[in-house]
């Protein structure tokens, strides 16, 4: 093939999904000449599965992307049609935002943002080959014969590598929702020595909302008081639309059991490994035979469409079976499908081949982000995208990469998990994966990351000023509440008759069911600050004891994390290590002893050996 000169760039981003967008924006906003290649320009910011952003753990990721100066939160705020704070009754650490998105609006908004960003070009093209010289990436080739000279590449190919969709006995080489897949790039990766894995995921059917009987379902509304994703968004007022709750029943399960032999998952047609986090309905029925019903949510795909998404009913059974089983569900008796549920298989890499910066260990300047790294989810993709974009820029500037610790961000937890432990199924963020959950709250993502984003250069003056103002106000509250002693009048206002000793106002705020607004009212003060500042100050005071407990744990964690390990060390030289540990350590080449301790197959005894060995 003859290649023509397609131009010269600082950064080429392959893929226009949630990872690619953040990577390209980070590159361009940091002043690098950036181009985003996508298989289909109609695909920018596409959500091939559920029409929602956020959820437990994932909501935290969106906030973190936002605090670093990313785009996902802003676009979600601009286009959501319902929003809700989850887990409000369960403590500050696990509260998470979740929004229903208008898919088309979201995409249009994202495309427009990209189009109006300086230094950024977007181009419809299929990347087919990576050009590597002396261990560095130097160019990328496209199917139509362009050779793009570049200093760094971020691959964010999503589920498009050699993708194949499966519906019962039917299967076809295709990307999601009928979009084209990418056939060649996998081969190029393999030629460059990367180990690929084959993963599987799936999506439920979309149905015509006009064929549903909502009177048989329970409507689920958004929050009346809207809390937005982005720290930049203020006072959003918007009409919201409901989702609907309904359930499967014994009849549904019977049909599934009768047709299980026709499921490609069980007949062995699908070889890819699916996530436990999004099991298909046939998986649920097979694994939990005692459950009498499973819950389903009917979610709108957008405001100007009648298409509805049936959350909980992902399936790869034949179309005919799907229709029959959907029709057993209350409210769906006369359902008309618009799109059939399908399973999709795709290539991704084994993420153990990555450094914590998301650069590949093998090829300098080649970064990867999103589902190609074995993760699943829009939010998981976005947070990797922004980090890969930032570090690709820092690579071209010859600066140290930005690596967020497990004690700093869910993003840090996610990347560390992937590059240290690898993953054998599509990886989903969960709050339980974070050891220091109380420090990594969604409300304090700005406290954790805004300064880092500022130092990187992605946080605008406006965002930074807001952040500084908020922190200042919060600290004033904390200091004042901790110093101010209580008096009888104050306690009486709060309805507390008995107390002893010299209490401070902060001590009273620590009691269950006492809130900062109550305290301020009891002090007779006007409340001028907004909710965000008040709740942040309240959490700091109320949970001080637990927060300090976690800070102590972090100190311990850091002590191992700060012990660097050499990059080019042969662990076979340490005889005290067990064979398995030697092999794993040689494979992964951890960056510090803390990371080594998290590798599966490295036992606490091996860690002692490392400590002893490298201490000498």
């Amino acid at each position, binding site marked *: 093939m003859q290649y023509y000169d397609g131009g010269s760039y600082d950064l080429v981003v392959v893929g226009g999904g949630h990872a690619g967008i953040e990577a390209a924006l980070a590159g361009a906003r940091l002043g690098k000449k950036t181009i985003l290649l996508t298989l289909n320009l109609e695909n920018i910011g596409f959500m091939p599965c559920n029409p929602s952003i956020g959820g437990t753990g994932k909501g935290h990721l969106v906030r973190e992307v936002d605090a670093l100066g990313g785009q996902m939160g802003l676009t979600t705020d601009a286009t959501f049609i319902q929003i809700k704070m989850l887990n409000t009754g369960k403590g500050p650490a696990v509260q998470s935002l979740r929004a229903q998105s208008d898919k088309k609006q979201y995409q249009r908004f994202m495309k427009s943002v990209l189009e109006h960003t300086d230094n950024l070009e977007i181009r419809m093209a299929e990347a087919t080959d990576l050009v590597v010289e002396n261990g560095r990436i130097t160019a990328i080739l496209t199917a139509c014969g362009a050779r793009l000279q570049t200093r760094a590449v971020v691959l964010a190919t999503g589920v498009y590598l050699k993708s194949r969709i499966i519906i019962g006995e039917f299967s076809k080489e295709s990307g999601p929702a009928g979009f084209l897949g990418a056939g060649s790039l996998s081969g190029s990766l393999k030629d460059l020595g990367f180990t690929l894995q084959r993963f599987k995921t799936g999506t439920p059917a979309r149905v015509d909302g006009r064929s549903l009987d909502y009177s048989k379902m329970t409507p689920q509304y958004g929050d009346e008081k809207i809390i937005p994703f982005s720290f930049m968004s203020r006072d959003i007022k918007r009409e919201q639309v409901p989702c609907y709750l309904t359930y499967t029943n014994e009849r549904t399960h019977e049909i599934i059991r009768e047709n299980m032999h026709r499921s490609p998952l069980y007949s062995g047609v699908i070889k890819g490994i699916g996530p436990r986090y*999004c099991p298909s309905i046939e998986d649920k029925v097979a694994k939990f035979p005692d459950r009498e019903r499973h819950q389903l949510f009917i979610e709108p795909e957008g405001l100007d469409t009648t298409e509805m998404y049936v959350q909980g009913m992902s399936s790869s059974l034949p179309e005919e079976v799907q229709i029959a089983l959907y029709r057993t569900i209350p409210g769906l008796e006369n359902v008309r499908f618009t799109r059939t549920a399908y399973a999709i298989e795709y290539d991704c890499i084994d993420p153990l081949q990555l450094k914590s910066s998301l650069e590949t260990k093998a090829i300098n300047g080649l970064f990867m982000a999103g589902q190609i790294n074995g993760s699943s989810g829009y939010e998981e993709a976005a947070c990797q995208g922004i980090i890969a974009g930032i570090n690709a820029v820092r690579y071209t500037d010859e600066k140290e990469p930005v690596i967020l610790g497990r004690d700093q961000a869910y993003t840090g937890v996610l990347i560390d998990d992937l590059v240290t432990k690898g993953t054998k199924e599509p990886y989903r963020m969960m709050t339980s994966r974070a050891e220091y959950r109380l420090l990594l709250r969604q409300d304090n993502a700005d406290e954790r990351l805004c300064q880092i984003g500022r130092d990187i250069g992605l946080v605008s003056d406006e965002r930074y000023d807001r952040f500084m103002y908020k922190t200042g106000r919060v600290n004033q509250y904390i200091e004042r509440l901790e110093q101010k002693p209580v008096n009888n009048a104050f306690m009486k206002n709060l309805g507390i008759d008995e107390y002893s000793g010299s209490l401070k106002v902060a001590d009273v705020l620590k009691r269950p069911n006492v809130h900062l607004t109550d305290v301020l009212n009891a002090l007779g003060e006007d409340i001028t600050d907004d909710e965000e500042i008040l709740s942040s100050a309240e959490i700091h005071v109320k949970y001080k004891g637990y927060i300090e407990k976690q800070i102590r744990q972090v100190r311990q964690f850091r002590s191992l994390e700060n012990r660097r390990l050499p990059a080019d060390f042969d662990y076979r030289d340490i005889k005290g290590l067990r064979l398995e540990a030697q092999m794993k350590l040689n494979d992964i080449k951890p960056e510090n002893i803390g990371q080594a301790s998290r590798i599966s197959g490295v036992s606490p005894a091996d860690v002692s050996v490392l400590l002893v060995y490298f201490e000498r």
Partner: protein
Amino acid sequence: MFRFEDTICAVATAIGNSGINIIRISGKEALPVALKIFRPLKAKAIKPRYMYLGDVYNGDEFIDRVLGVFFKGPYSYTGEDIFEIHCHGGIYSSQKIVETLISNGARPAEAGEFSRRAFLNGKIDLSQAEGIADQIGALSEKGARNAALQMRGSLSNEISEEQKKLTDVIAQVEAIVEYPEENLEDQVSDDLTADVKDIVKTLSRLKDSYKSGKILKEGARIAILGRPNVGKSSLLNSILNTERVIVSDIPGTTRDVVTEYYIYRGIPLIFSDTAGIRETKDIIERIGVDRSRAVLKEADIALLLLDSSEELTREDMDIYNDAVSENGNVIVVINKTDLENKLVHAGAEHMFSEDCIEISAKNGAGIDRLLETIYNKVITDASMEEGTIITNSRQEYALLTAIDSLNEAINGFENNIGFDLISIDLHDAWNSIGEITGETLDEKIIDRIFEKFCLGK
């Protein structure tokens, strides 16, 4: 700093009157170093795991006729090359051999270093390593048996069981917060608090066994008190003579506190004859008194000795009061019942809240009963007779912190504080337990969540 490239050596058997001692050499140079001093009688080459008869020489000086055996790493206790020399008993031969080895390139092993190497080489796990360390230090049969049990992993088993239960609780808490829309509250165990309380109960039992474990390992310390001439020394002699037992002076004792050591029904009893505790202005005497007071304080039991042939004196009562306030665990012993019994006739024994045991150190009457009383007092905990016992302070500390964290979690459940906060304490507890079993939490919780609940879209 611990160096594991050196070749180390030590006498592996307990110092005492045994017929045979074993000297162990471990490390890369184990065989060459051993062959510098060991001359096999017939063999030309040493094959692993064969016993060779030979002589040990220091240069030209003959030391002992011995058996030598070589274990090639990793098929050895430490995982390294090991050479063992089985020499004749007694201190002379073994000490001489060790000295000779050291002058030929081996280094004396630090306490527990063989086990440490075994641990670092993945031959044994942490709790096994500790069990072995305790076995080395165990003074008694029972202590040794317990150490053996721990070596086989009975402690690991019991604690792993509790760890598993805790994993279950955590998985339930996590699933609830992770999947708010699934309404899991009605699927989880009715009473997580009760589950946690159960775990606390078992861990507390294990933790409390530490005291018994320590006594098994180190022996029970018994202070003998009484004014001069009530028969303290004769009591000791009487105990030591009733059965023909090994008596030894434990080194390091002072002139003021005589210490004797005696095993009764498998429990080591360490008797300290104190100089007597009373106010004095004499400086030399003062030092003796202070020392005695320290012994009394640390003792597990204080024996107050009274003279049955004399009436109760003020000094007796002073000593008794001291014993009660400094120690609290007092047995009153009335000696010299072979003589005229003035004390009991005067009803003096009613001055004490403890039962009085009458003995005659001279003719041995009542000594058995006294020993039985001491034994029963020492074994206050049933776990001493059977079951797993914690014997080292690191394990006790880990259990203590786990229990503290679990109690905070219970408190959290009862006060309805957020699950995210409760989970911090639950995770803390898990990790404390993990310090004993050497395990980490990792993916276990997440695996358990998905085993237990049907989740996801």
